[in-house]
Structures are given as structure tokens and as C-alpha cells.
């Protein structure tokens, strides 16, 4: 699987994402600096976590307006699997590829810890490997993971199977405990937890690995 990791000023999980992709796909991803928006074709685009532009103004706001994101949006709309983690999720909502917004955690504190989640839809290209698993554990590390959307949108997301993951307990105030959502086509996933941090027992578990493996399998 050929993949690309988009790097913005202030991204800081770009290396983690690249390491995970290389370990799991056996292929080094290309690292795309935000100003080099004319990047080769790939099978998978990852928007990593971190604090692009320092999270100033709003998390992900400035990255979402960058040239490279125009290109990413184009490709995502054309069907390229696109995956945003944490800050990447925030960027995806800011560009409008995914609905809703991520607000300051309800208790106003940054939270870094393992969280248990349920996989709400195991039929997607990102989640098929989780079939049969009641709950999975993946760490979060964010200040603004409190998912918000209006009721209509939330109902639609749930009704159409676009909710990928839910926290088992409330950790940040997110509406309906939503941890990750997909677009209608199912080729764009944004989530707050960091699967790239849970890819081997030495890091505390391997539940995150399954997500990447699902994508590889779906691409055949």
C-alpha cells in the first residue's frame, strides 16, 4: 500500500504515523510538506496528530485552509482512503470533509490515556478487522476532542453507519460519546484516539494495528 503523510508546521505525530505505516505495510510512506501540494498518487492519505499552527485560533483551522488540503479534498472526494487522527480529525472537520466540529474538552483539561471504545460499524474499510470485538483499547491525547454536531447530523451519522467508534465512558464531553466518524462514502475517517500509538505489545497493545490492516485488506 502506497501511502502519504501530510506534514504541517506543528504536526508532531507525523513520524509516529510514518513508523506505524512502514511497520504495518512494509512500505515507507511519502512525507508531504504542506507546501509541496503536488504529490504523487497514493492509495492512502494520512493526516497526523499534533498541534499544526500551534492549535492557534482553532485546532486545525489554519491547516484546513492550506493548499495541500485543497489537493487532499479533491482526492478524498475522488475516493482515495483518507484518514485523520486527532489534529488530523480536526482538520477534516474544518475542511468540511467530515461534519461537525471538535470543541474544547468539557472539563477543559488535556487528556492522555488509554480509552476503551466500541466499534460501531465493522463493515467499513477502516474497521472490518474489528469484527467480533466487543471493545478495543486505544490511547487519546487531546485538548479539543469534544465532538459537536447538531441533532439532525448526529441522527444521520448514527442512522447511516457513519459513526465508527464511540468511547465506552465519557472522557471529553463528546456528543453521544463519538470518538470517530466517516463520510457518507466511507472512504474518509476521522478519529480522536491514536491507533498509531497502539501497534505493538511494547507500547501497551496492538488494537490500533487492526485499523491499518483493515485498510490494507480492503485495498486487496
Amino acid at each position, binding site marked *: 500500500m502506497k501511502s502519504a503523510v501530510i506534514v504541517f508546521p506543528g504536526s508532531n505525530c507525523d513520524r509516529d504515523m510514518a513508523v506505524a505505516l512502514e511497520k504495518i505495510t512494509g512500505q515507507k510512506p511519502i512525507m508531504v510538506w504542506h507546501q509541496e501540494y503536488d504529490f504523487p498518487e497514493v492509495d492512502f492519505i494520512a493526516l497526523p496528530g499534533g498541534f499544526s499552527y500551534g492549535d492557534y485560533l482553532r485546532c486545525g483551522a489554519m491547516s484546513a485552509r492550506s493548499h495541500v488540503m485543497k489537493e487532499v479534498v479533491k482526492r478524498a472526494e475522488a475516493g482515495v482512503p483518507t484518514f485523520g487522527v486527532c489534529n488530523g480529525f480536526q482538520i477534516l472537520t*474544518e475542511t468540511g470533509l467530515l461534519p461537525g*466540529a471538535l*470543541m474544547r474538552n*468539557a*472539563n477543559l483539561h488535556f487528556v492522555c490515556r488509554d480509552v476503551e471504545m466500541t466499534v460501531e460499524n465493522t463493515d467499513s474499510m477502516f474497521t472490518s478487522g474489528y469484527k467480533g470485538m466487543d471493545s478495543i483499547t486505544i490511547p487519546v491525547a487531546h485538548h479539543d476532542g*469534544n465532538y459537536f*454536531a447538531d441533532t439532525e447530523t448526529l441522527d444521520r451519522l448514527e442512522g447511516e453507519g457513519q459513526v465508527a467508534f464511540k468511547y465506552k465512558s465519557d472522557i471529553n464531553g463528546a456528543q453521544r460519546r463519538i470518538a470517530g466518524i466517516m463520510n457518507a462514502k466511507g472512504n474518509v475517517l476521522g478519529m480522536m484516539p491514536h491507533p498509531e500509538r497502539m501497534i505493538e505489545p511494547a507500547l501497551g497493545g496492538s488494537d490500533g494495528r487492526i485499523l491499518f490492516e483493515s485498510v490494507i485488506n480492503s485495498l486487496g
Partner: protein
Amino acid sequence: MKARIHITLKNGVLDPQGKAIEHALGNMGFTGVDAARQGKYIELDLSHTDRAKAEAEVDEMCKKLLANTVIENYSIELE
């Protein structure tokens, strides 16, 4: 020219910062606060001379970057 921009959360969007302020003020013994909301305040120094043009451009800045219109309202004053 100066633009003063207020960005506030839309009605119905939960405001964790505002809630925390309400709570903290209550704890500190300030009893008269029924509700608190927190928003952003942005000042821009503009080199524009044409007021109408400035207004249109600042409006675009708000739409395109400064506010997230999914959850926020904004208002602009020029000075």
C-alpha cells in the same frame, strides 16, 4: 483602519469554557451570575482606505478562516 471582530458560539452549542467560568465564579462566592459565555475577540489593523471594501474583505476572512460557521457566529465593527 481597524476591524474589531467578535466570534461567539451559536445558540445551542454547548460552551465548555463558559460553563467552567460560571462554575468557578459560583464557587468563588459571586452569586449574581446567571450565565457566562466565552468567545473570541480579534483586532485587525488594516491598510485599506475604502471602508466598504474593507468590510467585504473582513467578512470573507471571517467566513474563510476566523470563524467556524458550523458552530460560531461573528460580528464585525470597523473603526
